[in-house]
């Protein structure tokens, strides 16, 4: 079983649209949405949920005003400036600033502080017309997206083994922080989706630097390559310099959005389009590796 993670550095380069297109071509694959923060793959794959799990998020502390003796020890110890005085001059915790370290709870001399764990994150195993999809929904403003990514990937790999699938395909998050690190670590191969803009180039440079620390075989696809041919050439030069094979270049095509509106992958929308044919070729190359 081979695990492939689709990443971009910059957001909005077409990761999810490309993943959806690959989903409609790839046989015997399990799909996994690693962008737990703003998951979109399910909008195209239209899943029927089979399993639902709660993912326990971080802790949030609060002060019981009746027990609080106003000693201020918690305020002195909180490194996140999460404890302030409210309009009644009483100590209060701002849940959005609380990091969930629970130190205040431990040091309060009168046990006036307690914490509750967020149960706002869920993850799912679903059936789709292309196979199994493992995906998640984070509550707004939640922490620990990296841990949730590890959780959904673990389940996707188990399911791939159980069903003898040949691939796990991860639709990755943007950026290079904790969520991207979690979707990279231990994966078999990376497909980068790059757009020919100076931001796209800048961001993929940083992503490549991160991938290099993991030594994962990496391949690239330039999406909307005709938006700026010169920048596109610069990206090709960068890929050459890094010995990252370029598997294909897809043109800008408004039908990509039309397909999305119809909840279809571009290949389902019209498999005779140039863009559909290029993605088929890219998948063929990935399969043969």
């Amino acid at each position, binding site marked *: 079983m081979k695990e492939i993670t689709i990443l971009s550095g910059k957001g909005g*380069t077409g990761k999810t649209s490309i993943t959806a297109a690959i989903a409609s071509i790839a046989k015997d694959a399990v799909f996994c949405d690693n962008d737990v923060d703003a998951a*979109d793959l399910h909008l195209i794959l239209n899943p029927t949920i089979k399993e639902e799990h709660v993912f326990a998020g971080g802790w949030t502390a609060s002060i019981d005003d009746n027990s609080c003796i106003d000693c201020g020890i918690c305020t002195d110890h909180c490194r996140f400036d999460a404890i302030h005085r409210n309009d009644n001059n009483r100590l209060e915790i701002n849940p959005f600033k609380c990091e969930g370290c629970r130190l205040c709870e431990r040091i309060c001399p009168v046990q006036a502080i307690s914490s509750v764990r967020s149960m706002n994150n869920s993850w799912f195993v679903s059936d789709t017309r292309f196979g199994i999809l493992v995906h998640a929904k984070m509550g707004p*403003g939640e922490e620990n997206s990296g841990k949730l990514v590890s959780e959904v990937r673990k389940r996707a790999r188990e399911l791939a083994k159980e069903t003898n699938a040949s691939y796990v395909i991860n639709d990755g998050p943007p950026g290079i922080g904790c969520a991207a690190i979690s979707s990279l670590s231990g994966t078999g191969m990376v497909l980068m989706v790059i757009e020919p803009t100076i931001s796209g180039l800048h961001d993929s440079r940083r992503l490549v630097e991160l991938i290099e620390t993991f030594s994962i075989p990496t391949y690239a696809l330039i999406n909307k390559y005709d938006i700026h041919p010169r920048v596109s050439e610069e990206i090709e030069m960068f890929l050459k310099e890094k010995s990252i094979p370029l598997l294909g270049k897809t043109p800008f095509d408004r039908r990509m959005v039309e397909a999305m509106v119809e*909840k279809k992958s571009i290949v389902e929308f019209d498999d005779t389009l140039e863009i559909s044919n290029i993605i088929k070729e890219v998948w063929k190359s990935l399969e043969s590796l």
Partner: protein
Amino acid sequence: MPFKIAVASGKGGTGKTTVAVNLFHFFAKTFALKTQLIDCDVEEPNDLLFFQNSQLDSETTATQLIPFIDNDKCTYCRKCVSYCEFNAIVVIPPVNFAEVNSSLCHSCGACLVACEFDAISESPEEIGTIKNYRIGPKEILSEGRLKIGSAMQTMLIKQVKQHTREDMDVVIFDAPPGTSCPVVETVAEADYVILVTEPTPFGLYDLQLTVELLKDMGMRFGVLINKAGTGDHKVHDYLSEQKIEMLGEIPYSKEYASKYASGELLSHPSIEIEIQYKTIIRKLMARYT
């Protein structure tokens, strides 16, 4: 006190950077206001790419305090392990092993309070850099840049925000994509949040998540539709159903996309673009005063 505006989106690639950079430009140029742009997308900071003549004013290394366990003093009692909510400490008594995994540490200080043997001390470790640039007579750009491999983006955003200049008229925070803790940190102190979306199913879905977040936080916000003319009408329908303020619409143009691609966003902006941003800025100022 400056008027603080955050630019966020949920989905990546909807045009946050484009909007932030343009607002920055027009606030200073057309309205002659002292303006600071703070790039809080520390995983992939792109704002600076659009300014050719920037002059570096100051540079600081951003750090986090990482605990270090002194093996001579440690009794391997594991109290620090039980205090650490982030599973960042590994202590194995039979083999006298005690170590902190810095990539999981949130620098909350709980382990220092836990240790009764004075075996834990802290030292700073780099998580990124913060640079302040002079762009023009009235324009300052501050940028946080996460060290490759660090998962501490939220902590870095917090430190970048400390570079907010209270002597400015306007401060613009450019947020990272998503809806989790880094976005909360970026927008928390803003007087107003601009949500940039695109009229597509992905744009709408992620916009809804972000609206939910901002409502939870009790923030004031409005929506700017970028790439108008592509996709469908569902974002418009959603905004009118929810009675969310629409700040404006910027039509999709391949020519403009190409200017973004090469980084020439601000050179000779078209009259239409200029009018759009002036109108948006007037609406924003009306909110503030």
